[in-house]
């Protein structure tokens, strides 16, 4: 439930008055309130030794100020990042940047990240094609078939754990499992991104499937539909907006991944659409290269690339939120 209405200023004034009646709510026995709430506070619990009311009120005010301070400090980076990416990105953003590939040197000005953009599109697209069906099927199993059995519990636990695996390690895994045999390429990059996306898709789909009301399913069964028909025709369509939200968030996450691509796609200066046998670039890889080299031209391109990437990620996130807000299943 929501946190509820805030007590107004009157409450705080009253609290100062009440404390004069020395109701003891010392810091050392923090559970007095909850014990009281549970009806377990014996009569005669110490009402002495209360601090002076003014000090307690001031303490509360100081801590409130600290909380607001924390919010200001925590939100400053958001503002700064958006500001700098937009300003520095727009300076070097141009039609040329969007439509041409990188020059072969970080010192040279001009050129753009077209090859990187194409690489990101190919790899994220392929990764979505692999991970979305798998993730949805996994979630269907968890919710519709394996309800509460040990296998479902195990899968859910490890799918959670898998979402915490560092993305570099996913890259190393694909390197040892695929790249060693087939070389660097878009397909390997896509495989690593797919592994990162699957747990996200499973988790969000599962949440959505749980929200599908059982009377919808009952109606379907009453019409004589089989379980798989019910899932395909009733459950999945009802949950579709929520599932799409999860997929969009997973895509945003994959588009922003760098580390696994270093180990699987490697990066390249050339515009290529080959799926394997040839290294391929990605927006994140191009930005990383620009950021770690001390040349102004390379860094300028990196900022424009950052603006491009941030725009893609934020649009995906915003679309996801819009769909989620419109979904009827959302509580």
């Amino acid at each position: 439930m929501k946190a509820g209405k805030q007590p107004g200023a009157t409450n705080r004034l009253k609290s100062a008055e009440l404390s004069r009646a020395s109701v003891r709510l010392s810091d050392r026995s923090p559970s007095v309130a909850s014990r009281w709430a549970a009806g377990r506070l014996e009569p005669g619990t110490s009402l002495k030794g209360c601090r002076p009311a003014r000090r307690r009120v001031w303490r509360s005010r100081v801590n409130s100020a600290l909380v607001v301070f924390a919010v200001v400090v925590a939100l400053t980076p958001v503002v700064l990042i958006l500001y700098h990416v937009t300003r520095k990105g727009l300076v070097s953003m141009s039609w040329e940047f969007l439509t041409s590939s990188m020059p072969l040197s970080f010192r040279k000005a001009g050129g753009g990240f077209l090859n990187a953009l194409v690489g990101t599109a190919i790899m994220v697209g392929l990764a979505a094609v692999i991970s979305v069906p798998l993730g949805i099927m996994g979630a269907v199993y968890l919710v519709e078939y394996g309800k509460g059995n040990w296998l479902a519990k195990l899968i859910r636990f490890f799918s959670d754990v898998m979402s915490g695996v560092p993305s570099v390690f996913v890259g190393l895994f694909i390197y040892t499992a695929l790249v060693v045999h087939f070389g660097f390429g878009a397909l390997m990059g896509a495989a690593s991104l797919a592994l990162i996306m699957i747990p996200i898709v499973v988790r969000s789909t599962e949440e959505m499937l749980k929200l599908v009301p059982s009377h919808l399913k009952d109606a379907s069964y009453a019409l004589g539909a089989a379980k798989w028909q019910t899932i395909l025709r009733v459950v999945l369509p009802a949950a579709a907006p929520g599932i799409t939200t999860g997929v969009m968030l997973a895509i945003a996450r994959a588009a922003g991944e760098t580390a696994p691509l270093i180990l699987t796609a490697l990066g390249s200066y050339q515009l290529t659409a080959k799926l394997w046998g040839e290294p391929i670039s990605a927006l994140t890889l191009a930005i990383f290269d620009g950021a770690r080299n001390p040349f102004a031209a390379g860094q300028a391109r990196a900022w424009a690339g950052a603006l491009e990437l941030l725009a893609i990620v934020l649009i995906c996130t915003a679309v996801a939120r819009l769909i989620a807000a419109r979904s009827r299943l959302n509580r």
Partner: protein
Amino acid sequence: MHDRSSLTEESSPSLPLSAALAALSGVVVLLVLAYMLISTTSTALPVFSSQGISFITSSEWNPRQGRFGTLAFIYGTAVTSAIALLIAVPLSLGVAIFLSEYAPRWLRGPVGYAVDLLAAVPSVIYGLWGVTVLLPLFLQPAADFLARYLGFLPIFAGPPSGLSYFGAGVVLAIMVIPIITSLCREIFATVPDDERQAAYALGATRWEMIRAVVLPRGRAGVVGAVMLGLGRALGETIAVALLIGSAVSIDASILRPGYSMAALIANQFQEATGDHIRALVGVGVVLFGFTIAVNMVARLLVWRFNRP
């Protein structure tokens, strides 16, 4: 939640094939996780066996001479993550408390959205921003300041560098804040309003109410949230690679450059060959071990909180 009430489900005709198919996709998840460990470990095995225990107890990293000691990187990962948590935990708790206890309704949406935005920014953009903007704007001045006034303490000894454990830790903190905040916020939202009102009725000030009611209720969940943040900090690669200064050394001062496990892999992979690559994969296996352990504990804590 549902479905026990569903009358027909148990007796409905169920095509075994579809059940098997769905189960299969679930099993695939497990197999992939197992294969991940097998594939990487077997690749790194020659290096593990040639280095023995010195792989994690030595800090001598010299690929040319076949010496692979990773202690410096383990140290760097631990120190940067610790700095990140020291900064991020109080701030995240502050934001979460603000959102659930202080913020007027109209402010909740925008602040919550800003925090989510922080989570959506890709790590390479944090890295780029950290190196080109935050370094001259804040990290270097802060490092100079700490070294000048607190330099007598070994952990702040100079000469100070912005590209250091400290610099990487600060940027990691910014990246971890949204994770801890959003989980803590959900946890605080589960505190029943009756208990808040009960505390006020007893004469508690707002802060006393938070300490007596809100924080104790969420303790296990908050610890879990912090552990999940730690898991993210341990594995974060690109931003750290750009900000940690890339020096293979163990330094007591957080104002000196160092190296972390993930950053090492990202920085050296493209130039590595042969045993060097195997050693980098080995570093990845060690890192995987740490993060899996942290994540499992975190998930168990969060789960235990959600159960009852």
